[in-house]
């Protein structure tokens, strides 16, 4: 694949960010919001990948600095996801809340 064709992956990444953002806003379930947020994140990482690929030089397939950043990013994104999931599960277990809406807007909390 030539470096110029990595632009297609860049456009794909832009679309992924949009898809994820839409899901993040529209999906009422917290878990689905976390999933959407991961989708946005992976789209951003993919743009990093495209920037790295364009920086290919001296026999390296891509600029290793953004690639290393992405690896760090994926791991940090996972730890943030784990924290978010733990928060959502705990919220559900303590209040019975199904969404992040205030209690009066949705189901009354069941203790």
């Amino acid at each position, binding site marked *: 694949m030539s470096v110029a064709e990595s632009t297609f992956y860049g*456009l794909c990444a*832009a679309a992924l960010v949009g*898809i994820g953002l839409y899901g993040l806003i529209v999906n009422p379930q917290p*878990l689905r919001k976390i999933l959407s947020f991961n*989708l946005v994140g992976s789209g951003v990482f993919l743009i990093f990948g495209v920037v790295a690929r364009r920086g290919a030089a001296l026999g390296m397939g891509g600029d290793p600095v953004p690639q290393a950043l992405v690896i760090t990013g994926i791991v940090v994104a*996972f730890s943030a996801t*784990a924290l978010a999931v*733990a928060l959502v599960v705990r919220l559900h277990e303590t209040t019975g809340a*199904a969404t992040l809406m205030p209690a009066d807007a949705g189901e009354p909390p069941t203790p």
Partner: protein
Amino acid sequence: MNMALLFDGSLIVLILAVAVWTMAVRNSFAAVIGYATYGLLLALAWVRLAAVDAALTEAAIGGGLTSVLLIRAVVRLRSSESAARAETPGRVSRLLAAVLAGSVTAALALVVLTLPEPAPTLAPQVAANIASTSLGNAVTGVLLSFRAIDTLLEAVVLVFALIAVWTLTPDPLWGGRPGPRYELDENGMLAYLARLLPPLGIVVAVYVLWVGADLPGGKFQAGTLLAAMWLLAIMAGLVEAPPISQRWLRGALVLGTVVFLAIGFAGVPLAGAFLAYPEGHAKPLIIAIEAASMLSIALTLGLLVLGPPERGA
């Protein structure tokens, strides 16, 4: 050439289709399965972008570990699913969201299409200095030498995330074991797999760590593999998750960071700067950091998936 374009095109269409399906499907369980598929497809995209290290990480963490985490959460939140669905926003909000998402995509696409030419790159600098680390894998060189401070802080972030998860423990269970008790089915398929796979998985993890110096691989990928093997043994009921109050556990969690910091501070008198490696000894020191970090990362990732304690020690 055209075959490559066909492959890239189909891969991109497939990735986008799975992403849309993951957002649109009603059943959350199905959405998580979709996300796992998406992670694996994305790993293929990383290979196409010549970032094999990132591909390994995405497949292991994005496709594997995140999905395990989300599946466990879906099962626990299942009772709330229909109540939540009733709160889907109205048509106007959805339209506004679509406009917003569309404009963000358009802006990003514009940025991607107008990236500077020639592309700025640090590859020449990395190539010029990689010899001083005697590593063959430039990404490992960046992670453990040129930008070692980032990697050090990241290890700290992982531990912080785990502490944050643990703070959600109900008071009476503090110090207890995370996750439910998994019943061991002696003759079950899962117990069989959990006995057969971990020896292999450990060998592969050590291999991935070892070749990470010269080829794609490294402590994150290896640590994730180890975490997966550990989780498999726990979920099959072969071993129990340790109580979080155990001293050995807490020591092992920070082992990687401590070794990293110790070698970093040793660099001040020996090499003249924090996190600098003495001339000629970079590679063994980097491998020592990676080996210690792999254990800490494996434990941290596994415990992050298991969540806060749910039962007594």
